[in-house]
Each structure stands twice: as structure tokens, then as C-alpha cells.
């Protein structure tokens, strides 16, 4: 009987111990939002933002000019732009973070699932992507981002307004339709920009698992022709026609 108990205990340990080697997500059986995701023409539900009255047209224009500068000089683009970059996103769920990789030269986003607090403001250098932490609430991944840089990158927020160093973004990621759709609800709060929290939703469509991310198009800040194109107002004149005189 003693031998039986020892044997039973050993086998029980074999059953239990490996479980502790699994990642927290694996243990909880959280959904896996990994995959290649793309926005279509009808993927965006973006209401107009309720902006503070202090944000005059002149201030908004000045901000738009800074965003144009970021494009002109091939700066890092950052959030929220890279969530709608015009190309698919590669999202991969690891054991410590979920990475969101755009097909452009901006750095990927890391949604850290291995910590529940933001990096201290004392040591975190504000960035175009900010500091994101995420947790699962049932089948929904809730990501919270702070630590944005107020000037760098494309700061424009869909629906109006822009991010500043005081912005806070909460995203809720949820799979729909048997995992073929990824719904992401974005909610921005910023006491210097919005009167009320500004929410909008994107619904990404899953691409085939065999999709191959493309090499992104180069962005050369020293291409004079490109600079001229971006900085000059479009010509109203029709392009010169090459008509042969026969």
C-alpha cells in the first residue's frame, strides 16, 4: 500500500508540474489573436471626436503641419497611425507580450502581458508607441497605453484630435465570427484634447495563415522629388499632353 501511495504521488506530480511550465495565457486558455489582419473599406466605425473648444482651427492646423513633417522626413509614425497603416498587421501573442508589426518602417508595438503596471515616468522616455500593458478580461484583451510623445510621429487620432503626452489609450481586442474578425475598440482620453472620451472601432479581417508580409516601400527623406511632391500644393493645371503634330 505504501508503494502504491508513493507511485500515485509521483504520477500526480507528473500531471501537475508541467502545468506550471505553461505560460499564464496557456493556463487560462485565453484566445489567441495571432495572425495577419487587414482593414477593408468598411472596417472602420469612427464617430467625430468631441474636442475641447480651446482647440482652435489654428491649433489643429499647426498640429497637422507637424504630422506632415513626420511624413516628409520619414519619422517613426507611431500610434494610432500604425493601427491603420494601409497594409496588413502581423500580430503575434507570446508568453510575455503581444507584438503588433506593421508593414512599414515604424517600430512594432509591444503589449506587455507580463506586468500590470506602467513603467515609471521617471525612467520611461515618451515614445510614438507609448508604454502598453495588457490583460485578459474573459475573451477580451484590454490594453492600456500611456507614455506617448506629444510631438513625434503622426499624432492625428481618427475622428479628430491628436495624441499628447497626457493621452491615455484603452483598446479592447476581441475575436468575432469564429476568429475571422478582430474587433478593436479604441478609447482615447486626454484632458487637453477631448471633452469626453473618444471611442471608435476597427474590425480587422483575418488573412490566410500563409500570407507573406511584403517588404515595405522605402521612404527616403533625401529624395528631392518626393519632398517636392509632398510639400507643393497639387497643380490645378492638367498634365501636359504629349500630342504629336502630324
Amino acid at each position, binding site marked *: 500500500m505504501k508503494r*502504491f501511495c508513493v*507511485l*500515485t504521488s509521483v*504520477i*500526480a506530480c*507528473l*500531471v*501537475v*508540474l*508541467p*502545468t506550471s*511550465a*505553461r505560460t499564464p495565457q496557456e493556463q487560462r486558455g485565453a484566445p489567441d489573436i*495571432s495572425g495577419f489582419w487587414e482593414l477593408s473599406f468598411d472596417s472602420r466605425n469612427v464617430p467625430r471626436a468631441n474636442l475641447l473648444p480651446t482647440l482652435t482651427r489654428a491649433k489643429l492646423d499647426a498640429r497637422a503641419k507637424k504630422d506632415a*513633417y513626420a511624413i*516628409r*522626413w*520619414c*519619422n*517613426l509614425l507611431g500610434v494610432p497611425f500604425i493601427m491603420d497603416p494601409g497594409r496588413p498587421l*502581423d500580430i*503575434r*501573442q*507570446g*508568453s*510575455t*507580450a*503581444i*507584438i503588433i*508589426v506593421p508593414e512599414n*518602417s515604424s*517600430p*512594432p508595438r*509591444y503589449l*506587455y502581458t507580463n*506586468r500590470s*503596471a506602467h*513603467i*515609471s515616468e521617471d*525612467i*520611461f*522616455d515618451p*515614445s*510614438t*508607441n507609448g*508604454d502598453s500593458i495588457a490583460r485578459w478580461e474573459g475573451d477580451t484583451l484590454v490594453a492600456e497605453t500611456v507614455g506617448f*510623445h506629444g510631438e*513625434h510621429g503622426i499624432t492625428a487620432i481618427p475622428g479628430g484630435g491628436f495624441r499628447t503626452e497626457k493621452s491615455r489609450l484603452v483598446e479592447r481586442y476581441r475575436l468575432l465570427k469564429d476568429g475571422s474578425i478582430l474587433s478593436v475598440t479604441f478609447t482615447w482620453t486626454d484632458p487637453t484634447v477631448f471633452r469626453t472620451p473618444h471611442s471608435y472601432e476597427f474590425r480587422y479581417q483575418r488573412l490566410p*495563415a*500563409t500570407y*507573406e*508580409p511584403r*517588404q*515595405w*516601400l*522605402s*521612404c*527616403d*527623406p*533625401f529624395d528631392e522629388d518626393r519632398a517636392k511632391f509632398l510639400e507643393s500644393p497639387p497643380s490645378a493645371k492638367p498634365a501636359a499632353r504629349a500630342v504629336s503634330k502630324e
Partner: protein
Amino acid sequence: MRLRVVLVVSFLLSFAAPSVAHAQSAKIRLEGDWVRIDPDGVGSFGGLSGVIPPAQLLPGVSAPAGRGGRGGRGAPPTSGSGGPNPEGVPYIVVAQPCSGGGPGRSNGALLVNPDSGGIHFIEHKDEVIFAGERGGVRHIYLDGRSHPNVWTPTPAGHSVGRYDGNILMVETTGFMPGMVPGGGVRTAETRLLERFEMLPDGNRLTVTYTWEDPKVYQKPHVYRYYFDRAPMVESKGTKVSYALEEWCDAGDPVEKQSIIPPKQIIK
């Protein structure tokens, strides 16, 4: 009694079997943040390159024009003095800073042979993402796909991988022509095998690079890079590490300025 033991053991083993299998696959995780180290204490970037064994190229093979794997900011002419510059004389003049999305910095080319910037891995069953703080991302597919039949060569090529125990084995082809550390050369036909291997404590990563190309090399060109886990920093009472963002603004004139030796107080 014996029958009861057999029955209970069989019952428990039916649960244990998958867990044991999982335990075997439970690996030391590559995932996380790493920085390249200088294990030989050579003390400089040039020294790090110097310890790479020279590639044995076939007769007639020469390095193509342009930059290879390292990439980075617009090719800076160096002072070339070989020694320290005098006070006020810049070491480097960067005419075109931050190559932006150009072929050097972008597309993961820098991650084929990482420099001193931090690197980050996210492991998923179908793909490992290998990202760098100085730009670029490599996609390493573990889902069993093959290299594409039709592929336009890229700076980082096309990578597929698999785990052999705790070692991530990666095969990459489809490179744009360029140079390889140790005087090597790569072409669209060149094959790179990378072996990402960690010490049992999970804190030291050795990457063994093997470049193979019968049209280029007399024998495979092999060398190693070494990495440690990125240093943890104290944040709100917890030790953490995280990916940094390297900002560089090509439109900022300051970015064109170089390191200028300051006036030396102690002679």
C-alpha cells in the same frame, strides 16, 4: 490489490502523458530582450568584427559595392586618422542622417547580424518575431511553410525555422546582394543557417551563423555572436525590461552633427 494499482496508475498516466509531452516541449524561452555582448573583451566595434574568422571566398569572388548587413544611418565618412581626433575635430560627419525606411535600416537587414542595439523576440507557435530597437523586423515562420518559389530578394531574405529542443534553427535565403561579416558575400542564392542557442539558465544566447553558397565560399563561413538578457531596470519596486524606441529625425540639423572631442581637462 495489484489490479487496483494497475488501474489507478493507468488512469493517472492517461492524464500525465500529454503533460509529460508538454514538459518536453516546455523550453527555455528565447522570448524577451537581449543585448549583444563582447565576451572576449576586445573593447570596440572594430574589435568585435576583428575576431570573426575571415571568409574563404572562391577565387574571383569579390564583395559587391555598397553596404551589407549592418546598415544603419547614411554611410558616414570617417576621419581616418586612426587615433583620437584633436579637440574640436569631429570624428564623423553624417550628411544624410537616419536613413529612414531605406534599405539599410529597414526590413530587418540590421537583424541578420545585430549591432549594439537591443533586440527582442516574441515566440508564437507559428512564427517568431525578431525585432530590433534600431529598426527592422524579421519574420521567422515555424508553421511549416517553404521558401516561396517566387521571391524578390530583400535585405533580410525569407526565413523559416524550427525548434530542436531548446535551439531555434533558422534557414534564410533570398537575400539582396551584400556583404557579410568576416569579408563574406551574400547573393540571392546564398543560404544562411542560424542557430539560436541559450545556456541552461536562459540568460546567455549564442547565435551561430553559417553562410553557405557553393558559388561564393570555398567552405561554409561560420562565426558566432553572443547576447545577454537586457539589463533589468527598477520601476515601481519591480525589475523590468522593455523595448526602447530609437528616435532619429532626418529633418533635424542636430542629427547631422558629429561627436566632437571636448577640451581635455587632464592632460
